[in-house]
């Protein structure tokens, strides 16, 4: 492929300041460390992990919504950190986001028409009011809503419909990358399926690249070719989604898979048994803490001395990359 890569992140690190309190001095907590990823045009990447793993921080860091402590984000080869505010604003046309809670991310005082017009005012100021309204109606149609909905307010919609409006707003300026931060977690299953189908269809039609954040591996199964598993701000495992599902190398990936619900009573029993097998054998050994070693060690059923002392680095095992001292031993 010619031309620079659509989106690339190199060794990102994000620190959050922890203000002084009582006798404690002000300090920093590192919430994301050594995270690298690439996304080419039309590709899709899932970022999976439990709450607190740094998924949303990663999304915000990619959008330059928060400062990086180290690392670079390149959009078509251009470092986002050195752009001026005005330049950044234009680049964000390519980089749009869908948020988790549709009601919280849609202005309750604006009609749908006003909400959808906002990106057009910024990215397509040449449009007349009538043209904008046409574009808004077309965008609504694409996500399965009617033009009549343009004059309504967010609270007049169900959760699934409101999330469709969130998707329409992100797509209306014609982005190259859509970053979705748990877009379906707040929705009922049947509605969740509809919104995922909508994203899949839009991706197909527009050749969109997708960065999809989720806590449940099951949600990303069909949507993303590659998956990156985050825990405690570090990449535990990454590779083709199919490989991760068929041969999870990292014990954490296995834990995520075993935790996912099955729609079949027999399979649910098997998964519960799997979870018991993955439970850590003993309590944390005396004097050990995960600060020096692997962050997953306290919850790992395979943790041994090395895991407590030494941070595993990401290495190639089969067709995936995995950060685990014992990954090679796992079948």
């Amino acid at each position, binding site marked *: 492929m010619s031309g620079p890569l659509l989106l690339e992140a190199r060794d990102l690190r994000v620190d959050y300041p922890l203000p002084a309190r009582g006798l404690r001095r002000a300090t920093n907590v590192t919430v994301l460390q050594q995270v690298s990823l690439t996304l080419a045009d039309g590709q899709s990447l899932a970022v999976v992990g*439990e*709450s*607190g793993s740094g998924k949303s921080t990663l999304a915000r860091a990619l959008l330059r919504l928060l400062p990086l402590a180290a690392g670079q984000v390149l959009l078509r080869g251009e470092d986002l950190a050195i752009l001026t505010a005005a330049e950044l604003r234009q680049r964000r046309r390519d980089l749009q986001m869908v948020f988790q809670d549709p009601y919280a991310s849609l202005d309750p005082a604006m009609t749908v028409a006003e909400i959808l017009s906002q990106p057009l005012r910024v990215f397509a100021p040449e449009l007349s009011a009538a043209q904008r309204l046409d574009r808004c109606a077309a965008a609504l149609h694409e996500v399965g809503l009617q033009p009549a909905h343009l004059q309504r307010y967010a609270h007049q919609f*169900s*959760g699934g419909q409101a999330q469709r409006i969130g998707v329409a707003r992100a797509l209306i300026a014609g982005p190259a990358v859509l970053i979705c931060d748990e877009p379906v977690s707040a929705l*009922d*299953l*049947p*509605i*969740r*399926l509809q919104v*995922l*189908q909508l994203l*899949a269809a839009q991706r197909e039609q527009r050749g969109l690249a997708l960065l999809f954040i989720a*806590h*449940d*591996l*099951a*949600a990303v*199964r*069909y*949507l993303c070719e590659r998956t990156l598993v985050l825990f405690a701000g570090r990449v535990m495992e990454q590779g083709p989604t199919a490989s991760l*599902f*068929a041969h999870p190398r990292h014990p954490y990936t296995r*834990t*995520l*898979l*075993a*935790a*996912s*619900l*099955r*729609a*079949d*009573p027999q*399979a*649910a*029993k*098997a*998964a*519960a048994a799997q*979870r018991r097998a993955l439970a850590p054998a003993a309590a944390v050994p005396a004097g050990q803490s995960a600060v020096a070693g692997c962050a997953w060690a306290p919850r790992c059923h395979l943790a041994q001395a090395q895991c407590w002392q030494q941070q595993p680095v990401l290495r190639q095992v089969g067709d995936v990359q995995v950060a685990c001292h014992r990954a090679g031993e796992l079948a």
Partner: protein
Amino acid sequence: MNSTTPPLLQVRSLSVTPAGAHSGVRAVDAVSLQVQRGSILGIAGESGCGKTQLLLALLGLSPRGALVQGQVLWQGQALSAEGASRLRGDRIAMVFQDPMTALNPYLTLATQLCEVWHCHRPGAHAQANSRALSMLQAVGIDEPARRLKQYPHQLSGGQRQRVMLAMALMCEPDLLLADEPTTSLDVTVQAQILDLLLQLRERLGMALIVVTHDMGVLAQLADEVLVMESGRVVEHGATAQVFGAPQAPATQRLLQAAQRLQISDSPAEGGGL
């Protein structure tokens, strides 16, 4: 089970008509069900099907002005409004969907847990604290003594849901009603809470009614599944039967969504969304 023992809970043709409903639209429409001691009944349905209204009606907590018709029998005895309020929090307890709004942010966990005990066991004040401690332990909270002095915002989402559960268990209820108990949680925490509910059933012989839109939750928990649509029961049967041969279109829709969005244990299925 002895055939002469009445079921723990029996509901006969329960209907709820919300105040001001147009031409008598019913949120819950002639629902009948029963729950045996120690069994788990799952109630599934899409949002708006009336499943939460049904739970609230069982507890006598229907919104003001709603018309509630039908009969609720507790251990064979008809349950009046005062009777329900006496059982509530004691013999019948409830866990709500969102632990952040169900816990009081201004009060310590100790205050909130002990309140249940003070209400229902007024003669035994002294035991409240030790009771709270052992319940936090039972739901898997580390360092329960320290936690008791903390406030809800100092806990993670999963811990909060465990505290809700501990609060519901204070008086060792015979029946626990759980409204979407894991919907707002991560998958790993969800699995832990579901495993915990099964353990508690074993240990305490407690019966459960679990309400959810996710058939995956019921696949793991329920002995029996009841599916609701527009306030009515459209399917009711043993879990294996409902999952194996779903009859009602509503059940098929729910199951299909859960199947498409699950981890497949059999590879080579594919097929897209």
